[in-house]
């Protein structure tokens, strides 16, 4: 993919309590695999409210090369 697709659906998720050394300060944090609306999947962090499988999410920010997604604002339009 040449461009970042910034919306998708949660394919699976977990909340990490036991973190690797580098991310101990962030724990607990939610991690998810997002099925991108443009195709393909991405492993990303979740920011804000917890998400579950099937939830629609949108890209909130990219920090240190990692995408952070958040629950998409409910709306009547846009892609699913």
């Amino acid at each position, binding site marked *: 993919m040449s461009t970042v697709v910034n919306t998708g659906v949660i394919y699976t998720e*977990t909340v*990490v309590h036991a973190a690797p050394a*580098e991310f101990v300060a962030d724990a607990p*944090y939610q991690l998810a695999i997002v099925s991108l609306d443009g195709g393909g999947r991405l*492993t990303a962090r979740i920011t804000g409210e917890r998400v579950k499988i099937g939830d629609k999410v949108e890209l909130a920010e990219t920090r240190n090369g990692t995408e952070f997604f958040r629950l998409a604002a409910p709306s009547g339009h846009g892609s699913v």
Partner: protein
Amino acid sequence: MGIGKTAFGAFPDRTLRSLAVEAGEKCMQDAGVSPSQIEAFYLGNFAGPSFVGQNHLAPYIAGSLGLTGVPCTRFEAACASGGSAFFHAVSSVAAGLNDIVLVAGVEKMTSQTTPKVTEILAGAGDMAGEGRAGATFPALFAMIARRHMYQYGTTREQLAAVAVKNHANGAKNPLAHMRKVITMEQALAGKMISEPLTVFDCSLISDGAAAVVIVPLERASEFTDQPVRILGIAQTSDYVALDAKADITTFWAVREAAEKAYKMARVTARDIEFAEVHDCFTIAEIVATEDLGFVKKGEGGPYALEGRTCLRAERPVNASGGLKAKGHPVGATGVGQICDVALQIRGEAGELQLNRHSLGLAQNLGGSGATAVVTVLGGI
């Protein structure tokens, strides 16, 4: 064929080399071979350089076993490092390149802190993708569990049933790391590691080593009157990153390896009497029973909870206690599984001896399914 294993556990006074040497010596003694007869040495080790700062491990250990002047090679395939070393050793014997080959697997993990071990293990995943985002190995299998629960209705109790059963078996295994029976209540109330997996869903961080000697069947009678036959074996691969797989509730590499190994052995899943599977996490055992064809896709959860994998069931799974209770010294695991299956076939498994033990299977998984090795073993 000879076998040798150290106890698995946390051994602060033992070095990686001393563990591997103990397993190798026990194994050569069991096989009745001397180091001078060994024609090649295959070593399974995941992360010796990271865990203990030692590289060039195969000749390093071989030298201490009195083996020099022969090819000594280390195999790294994450948690399937041992299985991969075994597969390549078998290939060399089958090809006629070597007759008497020693395979060992070893890992020394407990000298590092748990966050450091977690970080080193995460290196078996895609560090530019899932690793960068903060995925640990428990997190990857937790995401597999969540999806399996979503697609098939698998429950926390079904996962916990795997842990309860493997702890019950491990309590009877003198070489197991965790010889402690646990209840369903305890398993469900464990400390959370990565939701929905608790500490009781995860295998242990352990030190340990295992070794086997392989010879061509026609020469087996020179060494033993009770040989264990390698009837079928296959190693296969898949993408490293979990998010690159189309369906994470199945390990395609395991399904393909099983299919090939069954075909080579001229058996079907139904014929397998018992199995040692790679339960690095409870969900992995449930998925393994499905991928190996013991039960239909999605039915692994009820299969575990109904007790159909326990010691006195028709087809016991992880009679040894599995990685869950035996411990999971990563590089040793795949070789250790071969030892455990061989022990059953010989009828030497003590309290854990199964009634039907003439056709067994070992399944070793690397990472979140990027390498799989399946071996079918039988008696004469």
